[in-house]
């Protein structure tokens, strides 16, 4: 019950953020020189045609009213329609969600497993692994996902032909091909995450290894394996979960690039396309989706912290 109340409270406190983001987007859009109606009707339309389209889009009303109208639609799941295809924004976004979520989920798994493994090893072994993790951390910062993706394509798709160059096969069509089509995008997406998590894991584990209780447990005969994997890892998990949340959000940002490179029909690619085409309703909807995602990730991080550390739970 307490958990439910916490979830409720956190979701409520995220309302201002959603409000701010959508209002900000709206104000920005109103600043556009010219307006979507002009884009739609073209240069040669008559004044009457232009006015009709404006009225149809609701652009002739004052800004707060427009926002209110959009907000009323949004809470009912109506985010307007694309200026280009005329398709409802909600269905456009929904149909692209699975691709992006597959990427993010796989990217989180890869970043988490590889990053924690590397960090743990480097904390326990020291020496060369420490420098490897440091170098990896710099590369994770320095190598942009879109360039790394292209390098991967040259090596593993063009030269070795192990994976398709671009494209996405839905899971329901062919699970094997789905997995193959995900390997390179996920690899490109995860580099930064692996680097960040490996470094943070190393720091957190080294910090925990220096704690008194580790010495007491070792002195009293707890097995090295249990100390490392049960006790040290769990105590190091708190800072890690926070970092994992940041990585999740950065993975979402990364999909904008990775989906563009690999021509995947996901949310990130759609945002890029809509930006190029100035398809404002799609952008507005996408921003809302992304903000909700961020809110959910932060909520998950908070809940995980509470589960992991009884002291946080009490607070």
């Amino acid at each position, binding site marked *: 019950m307490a958990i439910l109340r916490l979830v409720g409270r956190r979701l409520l406190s995220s309302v201002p953020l959603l409000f701010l983001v959508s209002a900000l987007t709206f104000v920005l859009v109103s600043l556009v020189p010219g307006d979507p109606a002009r884009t739609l009707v073209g240069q040669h339309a008559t004044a009457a045609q232009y006015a009709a389209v404006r009225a149809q889009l609701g652009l002739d009303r004052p800004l707060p009213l427009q926002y209110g109208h959009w907000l009323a639609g949004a809470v009912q799941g109506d985010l307007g329609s694309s200026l280009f295809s005329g398709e409802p924004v909600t269905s456009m976004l929904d149909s692209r969600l699975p691709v992006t979520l597959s990427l993010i989920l796989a990217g989180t798994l890869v970043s988490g497993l590889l990053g924690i493994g590397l960090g743990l090893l480097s904390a326990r072994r020291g020496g060369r692994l420490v420098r490897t993790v440091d170098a990896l951390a710099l590369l994770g*910062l320095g190598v942009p996902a879109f*360039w790394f993706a292209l390098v991967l394509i040259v090596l593993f798709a063009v030269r070795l032909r192990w994976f398709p160059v671009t494209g996405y096969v839905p899971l329901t069509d062919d699970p094997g091909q789905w997995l193959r089509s995900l390997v390179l995008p996920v690899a490109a997406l995860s580099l930064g995450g692996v680097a960040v998590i490996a470094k943070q894991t190393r720091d957190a584990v080294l910090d925990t290894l220096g704690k008194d209780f580790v010495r007491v447990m*070792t002195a009293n005969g707890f097995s090295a394996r249990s100390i490392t994997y049960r006790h040290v890892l769990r105590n190091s998990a708190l800072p890690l979960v926070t970092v994992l949340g940041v990585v999740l959000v950065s993975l979402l940002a990364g999909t904008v690039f990775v989906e563009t490179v690999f021509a995947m029909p996901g949310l990130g690619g759609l945002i890029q396309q809509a930006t190029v085409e100035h*398809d404002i309703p799609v952008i507005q909807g996408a*921003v809302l989706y992304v903000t909700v995602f961020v809110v959910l990730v932060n909520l998950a991080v908070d809940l995980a912290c509470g589960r992991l550390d009884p002291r946080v739970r009490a607070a």
Partner: protein
Amino acid sequence: MTDASVATRAAVPARGSLVRGLLRRRGAVLSLGWLLLLTLATVAAPLVTAHGPLDQDLNSVLTGPTGAHLLGTDTLGRDLLSRLLFGGRSTLLAVAEAVVVFLAIGVTAGLASGYLGGRLDWLITRTADLVFALPGIVIILVVLAVFPGNLHAAMVTFGVIGSPGLIRILRAQTLRVREELYVAAARVAGLTRPQILRRHILPRLTSTVIVQAALFAAIVVTIQAGLGFLGLGAPAPAPSWGGLVADASQVIDRDPWMLLPAGLPLVVTVVALGVLGDAVRDAAVEAWAPPVPAPARRPRRPMPTAAGVTTREPDPQALLSVIGLTVEIGGTPVVQDVSFDIRLGETLGVVGESGCGKSVTSLGILGLVPGRGRISAGHVLFQGSDLTASPTTLARVRGSGIAYVSQEPMVALDPTFTVGRQLAEAVARHSGCGRKAARVRAVDLLARVNLPDPAAVAARHPHQLSGGMAQRAAIALALAGEPRLLIADEPTTALDVTVQAEILGLLRSLQTETGMAVLLITHDWGVVADLCDRAVVMYAGQVVEQADVAALFSRPLHPYTAGLLAANPHAAVPGEPLPTIPGTVPPPGAWPDGCRFAARCALATDACAAPVPLTEPEPDRTTRCVHVDRLVQEGTSR
């Protein structure tokens, strides 16, 4: 000169030290070199390359590196080096725009929030939290959808979105600095707020600001290139780093070479900024650290132990024999040639001031020398087997042969598990019994250390226990393996006086019940008198005296023991000042060759300058003093 400026002088190091620290680091020099070179080449691009960034030559398309085109050409025969350098201009501009906004907002708001506090702080923190939660890249895309191709707007926005990170860091640091002594002194001296901020607080934040700016610049370079790659930067023929990568992506099947000149400068630049940021942070830590006194340099010579290295036969009666144990940390001995025995069921006290090596000795027995330390000589025999020789024996003995209770009960247990689960794990480990049986036994153990309602305690987490309860639980954990020897490192120091007596009582009754031996580290003579059969007195890493407790109290045969006993608050005469030993324990590395206590000793003579061996003036007691005969006589005539 005001008091404040005096205080400032003392606290603020020379500005040059940060720069010097930076120039000592190879990575920082290389990074600075690259960034400088890049900036110059970009600004002076027309001087570096003869080709214009837009000059097409359809006869030499995708040439790869040649004499005429050092980095090759693109699909329209345009020179890649030229496009790279001219494209770099927009990157530099973007970095400048974003970083200026980032710093303007971050520094102002961070300082104001941390220094002024109050309602303004609340407002700034809240806003920063809100902005921090925004998905940055997506907001920039919105801006670009609204202002097509306007990278300036995008970069200014990115500076705003990035600033909450800086605000948080600077706020925290300002809060810390403003409490420091010299800032308080400046306030008292009547300096105005802007003066204090400018003269005393900002200088302390400079390195942090540089570090954050470098890291943020690294991100801006990536983001700017990313936008160019997505086709959201400057429109088509204009060169940009991201655009180059996009061009390269069109021809990766035909000419993968182009990926390298298009991407590597980008990668190197971002890495250089990252390395620079790390280096500034490290150099700043160095510059602000209090000066470390250099270890006294003396000519290398053999350790002054040769005279006293113990090679005695172990006592066959002993449960534990420590023989000539020497522990080094970072090459410096911190415990030297320590020997003693513990017999079955006896309690041995180890006494001495802080820094004499008591804890290191006890951890050395368990093979747990802290940090980079190691046992460099000596043996630890437990029930006849040498723990220093075999890691497997050591692992088997830990917990089931020798158990350990530490000084700080509140941090001795894993905070994330319940007390019961930790105890059950220890029980299962040592007895091999099933999970259920282990849980039952865990509660039994808690009952045995006299915890009321043991089942409830088992369900709690360590932070829900009081210090005394936590120490009882820690003792229960040590008992889980039914050890023959319990090492207790100042088990009552961190506790209230009333609780101290209870824990000592518990130890005594447990010892009677189980017949285990106890190695008790303490600096409290009352505890020694109360609990111990014999005591070892340690000074500066050595054993200086060892005797039965009764004999030790009535007739100490080392001046240090005598001094410690005289300084015992339990024996203080009301109304008279408590006698103390003048001076302090010399730290490891600063030990003299001769008697280490000589500098603080009233009996010291020239004879004390030579290494002093342990002698056995009477059966079953040893001491390390050249004046032992005098002490024996004084003692008997007293």
